[in-house]
C-alpha cells in the first residue's frame, strides 16, 4: 500500500452560524506542505469566516482541525501563530501610524529587561524584507508611507520571519496597482520556494491562476468545487465559477 503523507492542515466538516446565517456549512479543506491553494468565491461566500476560524479569530460551532494529523483547538490568533499559521488580512494586517519595525514585531516584541523593547533586535526586520526584494529605506519609516505592495510584503515578511508553515493571504491583491500585484505574486512564489504553504483568498481569478496549484471554490458557505490547476484552464475555471 502506498503511504499517503499527512496533510499540513486539515479542516474537517466545519460549521459556523451567525445567528440564523449559516456562514460556513460543512466545509472541509486540506492544505499540503508547501502547497499554494487558491480559495475563490464571491463576497459573502464564507471564505473569510472559514479562514478566520483557522487563524484563531473565530471558533467553529462544529468540526475539527488537524495539523499533520494531530487534532488541535485554535482559540486565539497567538495560538494559531504558535502552530505556524500566519494570516495577512486585507487592510488590517498593519498599523499605518506605526513604524515598519514596530509593525513587524507587533504582539511579539523582542524585549530586554523588564519588558523594554530591544530596538537593535527590532531593526533586524530589514533582513527578511530585503530577502523578499523590498527596498524599504528605514525600519523607522511609518507604514502609511509604504506602497500597497510594500505593505503586503512587510506583512508577508513578518510571516516568513516567524517561521510560518502556512501563510493565509486574505485578498492580498485588492486595491493594488499592477506593479503591486506583481510584487505580491512574486512574494507568494518566494514562499513556495522555501516550502511554506499558502492559502490565497481572492475573487479575482486571474491573479491567483498564475500561482496557485489547486483551486477551492466556495459559494453560500459551501465548497462547491475543487479543481487542480492542470485540470482546468483559466477559461474553464471562470465557467465553473460562474455556474
Amino acid at each position, binding site marked *: 500500500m502506498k503511504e499517503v503523507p499527512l496533510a499540513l492542515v486539515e479542516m474537517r466538516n466545519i460549521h459556523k452560524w451567525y445567528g440564523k446565517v449559516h456562514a460556513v456549512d460543512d466545509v472541509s479543506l486540506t492544505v499540503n506542505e508547501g502547497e499554494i491553494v487558491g480559495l475563490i468565491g464571491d463576497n459573502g461566500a464564507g471564505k473569510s469566516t472559514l479562514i478566520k476560524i483557522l*487563524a484563531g*479569530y473565530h471558533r467553529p460551532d462544529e468540526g475539527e482541525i488537524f495539523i499533520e494529523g494531530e487534532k488541535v483547538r485554535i482559540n*486565539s*490568533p*497567538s495560538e494559531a*501563530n504558535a502552530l505556524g499559521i500566519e*494570516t495577512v*488580512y486585507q487592510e*488590517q*494586517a*498593519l*498599523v*499605518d*501610524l*506605526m*513604524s515598519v519595525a*514596530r509593525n513587524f*514585531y*507587533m*504582539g*511579539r*516584541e523582542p*524585549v530586554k529587561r523588564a*519588558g*523594554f*523593547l530591544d530596538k537593535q533586535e527590532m531593526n533586524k526586520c530589514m533582513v527578511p524584507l530585503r530577502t523578499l526584494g523590498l527596498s524599504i*529605506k*528605514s525600519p*523607522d*519609516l*511609518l507604514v502609511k*508611507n509604504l506602497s500597497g505592495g510594500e505593505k503586503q510584503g512587510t506583512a508577508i515578511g513578518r510571516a516568513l520571519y516567524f517561521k510560518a508553515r502556512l501563510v493565509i493571504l486574505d485578498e492580498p491583491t485588492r486595491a493594488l496597482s499592477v506593479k503591486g500585484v506583481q510584487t505580491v505574486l512574486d512574494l507568494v512564489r518566494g514562499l513556495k520556494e522555501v516550502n511554506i504553504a499558502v492559502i490565497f483568498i481572492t475573487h479575482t481569478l486571474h491573479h491567483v491562476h498564475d500561482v496557485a496549484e489547486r483551486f477551492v471554490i466556495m459559494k453560500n458557505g459551501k465548497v462547491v468545487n475543487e479543481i487542480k490547476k492542470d485540470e482546468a484552464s483559466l477559461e474553464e475555471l471562470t465557467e465553473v465559477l460562474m455556474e
Partner: protein
Amino acid sequence: MKERSSGIKHEVWQRFSRVAAAREAIIFGVAIGLFVLFTLLSDGRFASVRVISILAISAAELGIVALGVAMLMTCGEFDLSVGSVSAVGSIIAATLYQLGLNPFLAMAIAVGGGVGAGAINGLVVVKFGIPSFITTLGTMMVWRGFVSILTEGYTIIFRVVETHPAFHNVLQGGMGVVPAPLIWFVAMIIVLMLLLNFHRFGNHVFATGGNKEAARAMGINVNKTKVICFMIVGGLAAFTGVMQLARIRGFQALQGTGMELMAIAAVVVGGTSLFGGTGTIVGAALGVLIVTFIQFGLIMAGVAGFWYKFVLGVIIIAVVVINMAVERRRKI
C-alpha cells in the same frame, strides 16, 4: 572639513527627523512664545520666581492627569471622569486620615481606589461595548454625586502639616526653589514616556489605538491594553487628588471639577490624536504648560478672567489644525 559625500541618504534622514521632531518643536515654540508674551504684558511679573512656582504647581496637578489621558487617547479612548475620580481619591485619603490612618497608607489606598475606578471605566467600555465618552460621562456624575452625598457640602479638614510633616513635604515641599509637585510631574513624564515609547506595552497601546483589528489579529489583547490604560489614568487622577488635598489642606465636594476637559485640551494641543494611534507624552506635558500659561498669563496681564476660555478655545483649534498638517507629512 565637512564631508560632502555622505550623500542623499543622509539628507533624507535629516528631513525625516526634522518633520518628526516638528510636532514637539512647534508646541515648545508656542509655549515659549506665550511665556515671553505674558512676561512682556505683565511688566515682567509673569517671570518672577513666585509666579513660576505657582505655575509649576498648577501645571503639575493638571499635568500628571493629562499624561495618563494622553496614553489613554493614544489607545483610542477618552476619560471624562478624571476630575471626579481625583475627588474620590481626595475624600478616601482625607477620611482615612481622619480615622487615624497613617497618611502614606491613606494615600496608597486612595490611589488604589483610583485604579479601581479606572478598572470599572475600562471594563464597562470593553465588556459592554459602550463608547468611553458615554461610560465616563456616567462615572463622572456617579463619583461626583458620591462625594457630594458623603460631604453634604461640608469641608473635610486635612492638616497633615503639623502631624506628619514628612508627608506634606513629599507632596508639597520641594528641593530648594523647585516645588515637589513639579518633581512628581517630571518623574511621571519620564516613567510614562519610557512606558509608551520604549516598552512593549506602549507598542500595544499604539497598535490598539492605530488599528484595533490588526492588533487583535497579531495576538495583542486589546481589551486588556485598554483597561490597563484606564487604570493608569484612574491611579494618576487619585494621586493628583491627594496632592491637591495636601496643598489645600481640606476637601470640598467640587474639587477637580472641569479637570477632564482641561486635560483633554492640553493633550490635544500637545499633538495627541483625537482618533487614537498617535500620541506623545512630552507633547502632552508641553500642552499642559500652554494651557496653564494662558490661564494665569491673562490674569497677570490684567485681562478680564472670562477671556481665558475664549483664548484657550481659539488656541486649541489653531494648534490642532497645525498638528494635523504636520501629522500628514510625518514620515517616522
